[in-house]
């Protein structure tokens, strides 16, 4: 118990030591993609592979949301024909994937990040600019 924290414990008791921001990677254009470069501040906290896997999964999910394929074209054409009024009634493909992403982030937080004293913030809350990782102070282990 000394080493692991639950998500609730973190939110209620821990204090923030610092925040790390994973910036966007624009090398492929304007699509939503985050840099997979492992930040130095997390070296002592989390495994590099785990981190890269999380970011890569997020990137894949966003790519799925923004994918130009048959389904999105169909949705677009249908929307155009109805003068885009279906956007008022229907949830778009992008929004559905965003929900998936939120669920994935919560799951990652609960299973992987919270026990290590970290917290991922859903990028949509930061305007899809950054993935914010909050590093909590590990009081139980003394000062780090």
């Amino acid at each position, binding site marked *: 118990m000394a080493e692991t924290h639950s*998500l609730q414990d*973190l*939110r*209620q*008791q*821990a*204090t*923030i*030591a*610092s*925040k790390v*921001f994973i910036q*966007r990677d*624009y*090398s*492929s*254009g*304007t699509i939503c993609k985050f840099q997979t470069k492992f930040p130095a501040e997390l070296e002592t906290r989390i495994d590099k592979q785990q981190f890269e896997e999380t970011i890569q999964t997020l990137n894949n999910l966003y790519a799925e*949301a*923004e*994918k*130009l394929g048959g389904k*999105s*074209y169909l*949705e*677009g*054409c249908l*929307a*155009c024909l109805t*003068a*885009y*009024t279906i*956007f008022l009634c229907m949830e*778009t*493909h*992008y*929004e559905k994937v*965003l*929900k998936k*992403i*939120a669920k994935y*982030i*919560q799951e990652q937080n609960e299973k992987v990040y919270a026990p290590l004293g970290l917290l991922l*913030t*859903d990028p*949509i*809350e*930061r*305007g*899809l*600019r*950054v993935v*914010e990782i909050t590093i*909590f*102070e590990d*009081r139980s282990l003394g*000062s780090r």
Partner: protein
Amino acid sequence: MKNCEYQQIDPQALATPTPTPPPLPCPEKKTKRPRRKWEVFPGKNRFYCDGRIIVARQSGVLPLTLGLILVTSGLFFIFDCPFLVQHLASCIPAIGGVLFVFVIISLLQTSFTDPGILPRATPDEAADIEKQIDNPGSSSSYRPPPRTKEVLINQQVVKLKYCFTCKIFRPPRTSHCSLCDNCVERFDHHCPWVGNCVGKRNYRFFYTFIVSLSFLTAFIFGCVTTHLALRSQGGNGLVFALQASPASAVELVVCFFSVWSILGLSGFHTYLVAANLTTNEDIKGSWSGKSGSEETGNPYSYNNIFKNCCAVLCGPMPPSLIDRRGFVPSDDSAQTVPTEIALPAAKNDINMCTQGTKDLLETATRSPLLSSTCPQGKPQTAIPFPEARADPEPSAAPAPAPVPTPAPVRGGHRASGSSDRPRSGRSGKGKRSSSHNRNHAYTATSPPGSPNPRRGHRHHRSQKFTSLH
């Protein structure tokens, strides 16, 4: 005797006076309506229907556009259609009606949709970016030289500029609209006819609007001309026809001038769509290779007209990033900040004295501030709570100040990390009222720590966030 006195003063009676003088913070915060994010939005936009509808600050000539369309179409349906149905074809009003509906709907959607506004950076983000830049002159009043970052996109070097207002490095194709005071993704232009910026999210609506409007004006022009031609048949002459149907003259004039401009605009935008360009890029000649080098080409184009059109017009609809209708958690932070001192159960209000003192200070300094508003450009119901508190904090600092901070303060940035979310609204306001110092003073003196309900609140918010607009 002493015992009697102690017994008379029972703990609850003792406890109640302390919270009663400042009953305003605690119960008021609970009964205070949770504020939506659109109410604390830092840009110069206006919101209606509780944040569902967003327009630019100046509606421009949108009323004129609407008026012209409605009047011309109205005159057409009332004066020309009966004659044409009788003498030509009965489907004319139907076609006109469909076009008219398309025009109005797409116009309203263009005007009232978030064009792709990028929310401003939170103070933590801004601080993080500052650290990465060479000259960390964050609180200086003069503008350092423009900061740029170079990125390679499709083997093409693209410069990303730093936006001083939004405190972010603008993503590619994003531009800051000075009229709306927002960074807009895939910024095309700010259209006064529509009263809004045209950007990533509403470009397709805009394109539909101008194309359907060009069809509508051409259709009305054609119908009116036919109408007048039919009336002037039989030796009656054009003057007679105009006298018989004066409304047609009005329509003719309006449509004649509109057709050329709207058709021209539609043609121009069709070219832009096919080349996957924005008006902004076209005007600046970003990819036209004006430097003479043949290597500059549009890195965003798929080099296939059909694919470009599909991508721009039928691509997935991105969500609104500003979450207008989400709730601002700032009230919680204002409430929990006093409880974050290293007192074990402070948040349970057991230590009444400390709580009471802080609340007293809060209320004492809060009330005069409610009247002294920061100059706001848009109608807002009240100053956000923490903003009002931002002023007294420096003066009230001595009282709660001696906080044994568990972690070292890194140049003041760390202190600002405690309540990042509410500050996003506040820092925007602080900027607008040009009181950077005040904001920084607030961040420096507020005790750092993680307010508990706020974290939980943020968790709830993250779930709420996904169901956007």
